[in-house]
């Protein structure tokens, strides 16, 4: 499936009518005390609406990265990140994420994709919660040999805007945006 079609598919899914069972786009994350203790590095970010609003006031519109960030966080109610990096493989177990996956299995959440890379041995799951034809919650679980990352974004999410962050924040552009002409050498 070409990347362009894939992105369109995500966007279309986001527009599909969804039935809400009052599921919560904000995940309740476990304490992860054990994981943090074993990690060589950890990232713990919990930003609620007031903090996002405060941050937005300090984002510099003349800086392209910060301008993109300000655009991306408009309409968001929260961003939660938990990321743990370990010195060796196998420092965490799949069962460490049982409580997170059980929430993502409740009605309202849809698993958009799950990818397994043979090259990097990384497993990435992307979940979306929709209400009244709008995406209101995003969850990403990235399980890599030496890193575990959970991202939960709450609020009105525009996946196209998130995609536009590609090429910023030090992430290289892969040329996987809207369909390019074959002459451009696109892989799509």
């Amino acid at each position, binding site marked *: 499936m070409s990347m362009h079609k894939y992105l369109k598919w995500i966007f279309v899914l986001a527009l599909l009518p969804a039935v809400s069972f009052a599921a919560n786009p904000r995940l309740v994350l476990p304490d992860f*005390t054990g994981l943090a*203790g074993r990690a060589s590095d950890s990232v713990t970010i919990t930003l609620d609406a007031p903090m996002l609003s405060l941050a937005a006031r300090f984002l510099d519109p003349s800086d392209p990265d910060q301008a993109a960030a300000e655009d991306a966080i408009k309409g968001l109610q929260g961003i939660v990140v938990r990321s743990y990096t370990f010195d060796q493989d196998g420092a965490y177990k799949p069962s460490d994420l049982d409580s997170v996956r059980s929430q993502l299995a409740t009605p309202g959440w849809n698993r958009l994709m799950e990818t397994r890379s043979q090259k990097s041995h990384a497993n990435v799951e992307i979940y979306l919660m929709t209400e009244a034809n709008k995406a209101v919650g995003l969850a990403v679980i990235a399980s890599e040999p030496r890193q575990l990352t959970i991202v939960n974004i709450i609020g009105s999410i525009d996946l196209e805007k998130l995609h536009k962050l590609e090429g910023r924040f030090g992430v290289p552009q892969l040329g996987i945006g809207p369909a390019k002409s074959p002459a451009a050498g696109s892989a799509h």
Partner: protein
Amino acid sequence: MDEQLAQARAGNLGAFSTLVQAHKRSVYSLALRMLGQPELAEDMAQEVFIQLHANLSSILSADHLAFWLRKVTAHRVIDYLRRRPTVSITSLDEEAEQMEPADPGDPLLQRQVRQLILGLSPDARAVVTLRYQEDLDPVDIARTLDMSINTVKSHLKRSLDLMRQRIESGEPPRCEGQSP
């Protein structure tokens, strides 16, 4: 101590003075180990007690008082360090003033360790000092500094690793500003 607290709340300056005597070493030392400057640490400690005097009515018990003093001191120093990123290494004369007459152990090694702490970020300094001076466990440190337990443990682990690495490599202590 609860009795002293009740009397201090009622306006008894003598009782308040007793509270100061009971806690001034802890408050001053916490500021000193994080700032590395005795005069500044004294100034900061006095501001904490002045703030305490203005907020005695909100102190519920002797335990709460100890918690409140640590919390306010740590937050004040962290805020100060974030505004003033440059940290000075104390001179040997200042170090001599800091030492207690009956201070056991190797003074040069103690100085080295203190300088290593001053090379940490403000948050990490607070975590390490609360852990090894006040003997708080990570849960209490987290409550004091309004951090998650994970962050406290992360700071502890990374700080110890960094200090151990610098001791082993014989690297001289660095002046560090704010954390990246």
